[in-house]
């Protein structure tokens, strides 16, 4: 190997370690480099250390992201959204805010109170959105399910009835339909719900229940249940659920989204209201209040 001006062969060889490691040296170049390495203990040593350094870097463990990170992002996003809405409104209507109110708002913002403002929770506490799930012969009261709320889940659950696919076999009487993954048959059994609730509690899963009322009759036309199961141990949980409620059909979410990598969210739609397709059609423009 001929060194470039002002460089020794060893320097030249050592500068090509990256190419050698990437496998980008071929033919004569590679042969010459390898011949030099086999005859030069200094370069051979550097080459071994260089390789070992890259290997050691590649073997550094990936740290798992603590759950608090995602929680923190959610909280900060809510705060940012609330702030943005208020500031946007203020830009349009600056004269409508009296000075004392402005001061109070300032204090609220300063104390980070908006971050704690959770409109979905107040809706839930109001009770109008939470309905009983009725099946022939059984009534499952909301208090029988562990009710917790996450903003996105709640938003999702409050989506209007118009979103239903008209071609879908609807209403799905006595069926529990699992979004993304599967449909479980839970026909007419309160006990099944209780057992699922127990399984979820044990696996640190969560269950949400939301009802949507007909705007005219006030009747609950649709209840949606959302199960959130930690990915860790997910297969076992699903197996347990399947053992009490066999899988019947597979459904997908509207966007064919993949399951979340950390927690698989399963949306369950349950309905049994005895309403015909015709009775349901006006609901397509109804939004839950």
């Amino acid at each position, binding site marked *: 190997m001929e060194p470039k001006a002002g460089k020794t062969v060893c320097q030249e060889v*050592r*500068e090509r*370690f*990256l190419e050698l490691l990437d496998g980008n040296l071929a033919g004569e170049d590679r042969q010459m480099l390898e011949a030099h390495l086999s005859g030069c203990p*200094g370069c051979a*040593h*550097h080459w071994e*250390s*260089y390789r*070992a*350094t*890259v290997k*050691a*870097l*590649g*073997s*550094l*463990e*990936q*740290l*798992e*992201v*603590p759950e*608090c*990170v*995602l929680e*923190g*992002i*959610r909280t*900060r*996003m809510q705060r*940012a959204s609330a702030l943005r809405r208020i500031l946007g409104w203020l830009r349009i209507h600056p004269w409508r805010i009296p000075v004392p109110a402005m001061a109070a708002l300032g204090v609220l913002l300063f104390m980070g109170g908006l971050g704690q403002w959770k409109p979905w929770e107040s809706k839930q506490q109001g009770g109008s959105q939470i309905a009983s799930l009725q099946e022939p012969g059984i009534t499952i009261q909301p208090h029988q399910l562990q009710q917790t709320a996450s*903003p*996105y889940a709640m*938003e*999702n659950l409050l*989506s209007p009835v*118009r*979103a*239903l*696919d008209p*071609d*879908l076999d609807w209403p799905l009487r006595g069926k529990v*339909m699992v*979004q993304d993954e599967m449909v479980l048959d839970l026909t007419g059994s309160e006990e099944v719900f209780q057992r699922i609730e127990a399984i979820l509690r044990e696996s640190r899963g969560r269950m949400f229940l939301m009802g949507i009322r007909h705007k005219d009759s006030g009747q609950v036309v649709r209840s949606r249940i959302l199960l959130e199961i930690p990915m860790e141990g997910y297969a076992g949980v699903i197996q347990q659920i399947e053992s009490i409620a066999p899988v019947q*059909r*597979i*459904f*997908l*979410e*509207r*966007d*064919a*989204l*993949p399951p*979340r*990598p*950390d927690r698989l969210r399963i949306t369950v*739609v349950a309905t049994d209201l005895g309403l015909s397709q015709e009775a349901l059609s006006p609901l397509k423009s109804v939004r839950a209040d």
Partner: protein
Amino acid sequence: MKNRREESGADLETLFPIHCLKKEEAPGQEDDPWAPEEWERRWIQNAQKGDPESFERIVIAYQQKIFNLAFRLLGDKEEAEDLTQEVFLNVYKHLSSFRGDAQFSTWIYQVALNHCRNRFKYLKRRFYQSTESLDDPLQGGEGDLERELPDEADVPEEALHRRQVQRLVQRAVQRLRPDYREIIVLRDIQELSYQEISEVLGLPEGTIKSRLHRARWELKELLAELGIFRSG
């Protein structure tokens, strides 16, 4: 078969029986609705329209990479946690300005790197004022990894040795100058391609390679100093 999503409109939430969207019925590789890039594109579009759930999916897809990037660059887990949150909040605020000219991953890495650089400068100033240096071995000599592994009494010797080496490597990475540390983390730890690194750092591939070589060489010397390799 006509895709029902087209019929019902993209904004509607609709449940589809799976037979409508079977993979083999997808209209070709480029439009494959099952491709991860396609999911990502959809998440970004929906998040830009204000859908928080789609944004959350973006966070979940990238948080591991960003968190580990921050941890390797800053050497502190709590700082990395805080920085990861800050990065995603920033992405959330400025998502509407992402036009898709570049890869989303490139964009998010650029945002994360900028945050890391600023945080590093801040920490360096703070440590400098408290008479410590970020160039010194971190926090009690073993850095954050030690806090991760509190009880080693029952750990087999081989695993213990591996952990020890990992700590030393992390320590050595911390002692590199910032531009060397960045390139080592991006290439040798996060395993980005040269092209990706070139796009993230805005440098030609030739520059990337020569800088990477120098960074590896320096790290090799540092590891020799720490007793992992014999000095050459």
